[in-house]
């Protein structure tokens, strides 16, 4: 069994993975299996506030972000949250830690809903001790930094639903939430559908607004009360700050989400759509979720073609919305878009103009410690993966060389759909996607139903119903081991990365238990 220098208490969890039991000083519950861990007790709750402490005219504007942070009591060891609705166009997170550095504050925990390449800037603050660790996602350069063991604290990776759960259950206590708002009023009501930095919705910040001790709304488009729609309620907000520029619009909504031109990926998309059709997963009134990747977008277009031909429509499509999903709504091919984030300007426009384009939050869509969530009502979820193993376990956070490179996003939460399909190439360049064992476990195989590759489709043996339906199909149905062998025949069998005996981050499951550990890479 692996030992850890930093953390000597390691156990094997129900998925057979070695994980630490104490992380950043907090006692952890190792993963127990799907639906097995049911905490008792009450949720966390914020402090009681009194209107007497807030201006009766509703004007909570303070002169600067620095002033707001000082008034919030920014201090050593605090947890500061930000959100990724501006994606790579975020200008706020870096400024917060510039201010912390200037004030000489140390050991902060950054709790973003996701990080992007623009946050590489923060590496200097991770190095000098301003930031102790990131609990959120560590992408690209931040992932490399973490994997090489350079982060002081231990990284914690959570899904979007897991993030809501952690805040709600009190696992993470947010001291100060800073919410970037494309439009807000002085009272703190805010939305993402108006303003030059319009990004659609602010759902990722909902938990923070509800549970943080202090909440700051920062905007570059202040409107007189009321700011409608009020996606974030000013009643949760302590201070409002107005700055010149809140984000870089062209990096917030890429405007370039396009269907793939790669013939191989188009073929995988076509196979996926044909599989769904032959397996009877598409019907009048069905629902689906397809992500923003080129292959997923193409699958959505095939779905739309099938619906149009049969004069059917979907009851709802789950966003990440984009122009293709919006055109389905406009054409009447879906009754609703239930949107978690908007990927392009058409998505923003649609959310602003159409009542059937609904903004959702991780609470309604993903939170596992709620009285249900709608991820499990979705008929088909199309997701990606960096690796899948012969037991259908999948990885989305590390590369085969052991480096962290992605966050979990809503991926874990979507696994609860009625049919989860991973369309993936059999290999990327020379790297087989199908492995004996995933480098990092992010999703247990029992929740992953179908793998579609350009050289064949593997159905999880647990899905006897799907296997029976596809009997006699002309589609290339194979076993996952056959597919893995094909990949290795072409690429050769890859060596596994060497790791040092040191945990650098953990992967949480949707219920807050520890699903896997990420180890320091051996350079």
């Amino acid at each position, binding site marked *: 069994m692996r030992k850890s220098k930093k953390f000597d208490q390691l156990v094997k969890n129900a998925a057979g993975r070695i994980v630490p039991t104490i992380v950043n000083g907090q006692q952890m519950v190792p993963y127990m299996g799907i639906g097995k861990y049911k905490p008792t007790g009450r949720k966390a709750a914020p402090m009681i506030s009194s209107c007497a402490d807030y201006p009766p005219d509703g004007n909570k504007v303070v002169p600067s972000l620095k002033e707001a942070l000082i008034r919030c009591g920014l201090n050593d060891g605090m947890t500061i949250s930000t959100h990724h609705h501006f994606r790579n166009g975020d200008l706020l997170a870096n400024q917060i830690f510039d201010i912390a550095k200037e004030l000489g504050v140390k050991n902060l925990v950054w709790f973003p809903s996701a990080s992007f390449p623009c946050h590489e800037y923060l590496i200097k603050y991770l190095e000098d001790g301003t930031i102790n660790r990131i609990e959120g996602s560590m992408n690209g350069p931040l992932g490399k930094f973490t994997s090489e063991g350079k982060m002081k604290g231990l990284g914690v990776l959570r899904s979007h639903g897991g993030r809501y759960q952690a805040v709600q259950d009190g696992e993470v206590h947010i001291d100060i939430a800073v919410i970037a708002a494309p439009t807000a009023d002085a009272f703190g009501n805010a939305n993402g559908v108006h303003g030059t930095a319009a990004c659609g919705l602010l759902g990722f910040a909902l938990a923070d607004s509800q549970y943080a001790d202090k909440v700051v709304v920062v905007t570059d488009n202040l409107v007189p009360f009321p700011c409608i729609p009020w996606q974030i309620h000013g009643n949760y907000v302590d201070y409002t700050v107005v700055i010149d520029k809140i984000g870089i619009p062209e990096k917030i909504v890429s405007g370039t989400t396009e269907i793939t031109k790669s*013939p191989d990926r188009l073929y995988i998309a076509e196979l996926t759509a044909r599989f769904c059709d032959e397996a009877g997963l598409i019907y009048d009134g069905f629902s689906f979720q397809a992500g923003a990747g080129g292959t997923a977008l193409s699958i959505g277009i095939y779905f739309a073609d099938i619906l149009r031909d049969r004069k059917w429509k979907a009851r709802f499509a789950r966003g990440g919305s984009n122009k293709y999903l919006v055109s389905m709504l406009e054409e009447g091919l879906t009754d609703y878009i239930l949107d978690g984030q908007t990927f392009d300007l058409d998505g923003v426009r649609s959310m602003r103009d159409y009542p059937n384009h609904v903004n959702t939050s991780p609470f309604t869509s993903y939170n596992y410690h709620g009285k249900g969530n709608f991820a499990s009502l979705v008929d088909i979820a199309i997701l990606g993966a960096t690796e899948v193993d012969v037991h259908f376990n999948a990885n989305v956070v590390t590369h*085969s060389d052991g480096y962290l490179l992605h966050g979990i996003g809503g991926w874990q939460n979507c696994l609860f759909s009625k049919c989860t399909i991973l369309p993936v190439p059999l290999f*990327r360049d*020379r790297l087989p996607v199908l492995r004996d064992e995933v480098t990092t476990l992010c999703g247990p195989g029992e929740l992953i139903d179908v793998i579609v590759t*350009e050289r064949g489709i593997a159905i999880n043996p647990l899905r006897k119903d799907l296997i029976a339906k596809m009997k006699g199909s002309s589609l290339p149905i194979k076993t996952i081991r056959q597919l893995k062998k094909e990949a290795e025949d*072409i*690429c050769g069998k890859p*060596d*596994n990365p060497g790791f040092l005996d040191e945990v650098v981050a953990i992967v949480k499951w949707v219920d807050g238990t520890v699903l896997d550990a990420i180890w320091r890479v051996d350079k």
Partner: protein
Amino acid sequence: MGSVYTSGNKGKGIRSDCFITLEKTRTKTPEILVESKVQVMYGKDIRKLIDRILTALKIDHVKIHVEDSGALPFVIAARLESVIRMAFGTKKEFLPDLLPQNKYHTARERNRFSRLYLPGNTPNLMINAGIHKPDGIILDLEDAVAPDKKFEARFIVRNALRTLDFYGAERMVRINQVPMGLDDLEFIVPHYINLILIPKCEHADQVIQVSKKIDTLQKTAKVNYSIWLMPIIESALGVMNAYPIALASDKVVAMAIGLEDYTADLGTRRTPDGTESFFARSMVVNAARAAGIQPIDSVFSDVNDMEGLKQNVIRSKALGFDGMGCIHPRQIKVIHEGFAPEAPEIEKAGKIVLAYENAISKGLGVVALGSKMIDAPVVKRALKTIDLAVSMGILNANWKESENEKK
């Protein structure tokens, strides 16, 4: 400082390829430096392969630098062998293992609706080409390869023929124009090639030269499988000589037309209607039919214009062509649909096949449909049409049952 030789590709946008630099040194033991995108997973494997090749070819006093962007082993082997041959002029080969399933041969009359061109020095486009199910795959040594890359491309093409599974597609290579193309042949003839395209063909003699060289190489390699030829007519002179070219060798199974060069030769441009090439296309169709081989149309070069491609296929089929080239996998489906047998054709063929089977079961020597007698070649064509319609999914494999139900 010794002489430096290079092979392969590197830089932004290069995937599944590698760039190898070889430098002659004074030290006997080879110095090997591998920088790979997949270092952790395959670094050792790459080094082992390089050692094996150096040992097999008895090479020392070299410094080898591999800059790898995720190349498959057949690519690394090709790059290294080509750079060694440049440096040492050796003729010794390092052949990767032949995939057992690649030892197939193709029939003279097989369908050649689509043939997908792949540049011979761009391995990443070759790896998945077979999954798109073109009738033929062309590894191109001619126009798609820059002049200074012609030599190294031969090794990629040879290794691809041996190690890549094209899932039943007819395995083709377009060699360079004769006489240069004759030197390409030794890299492909012994490696289970199915068909060779001879570009810019103007005289029957060019076909004869290729055919003779194939015979010689096959004799040396002690193989005797069929290797078919498809001359490409790409000039005014070629058009005038189309018939003798078609008859030049019994290896010729098809003749193609290449319109980019042809229109340039005429001093005109390609137009969507193709009026300028009407004569040439008809000549090629007529010459091919007269010689009993398949006439094959030129490529349609706008990969984004699917409707234009569709119209082009319709015109092509109407002129009498049996297939055409494609330069992108997404064109394959449109081409197959366009050349597929049409509904009335299938229906008529079905009736003929049923009448034929009826005649056999009753022991009749003569097949008749209504009051009309049916000749053997017509039956044969009908059977082929039905097979094709079934294999393309246009006709249900149980079509006879539903036909009988109608009765």
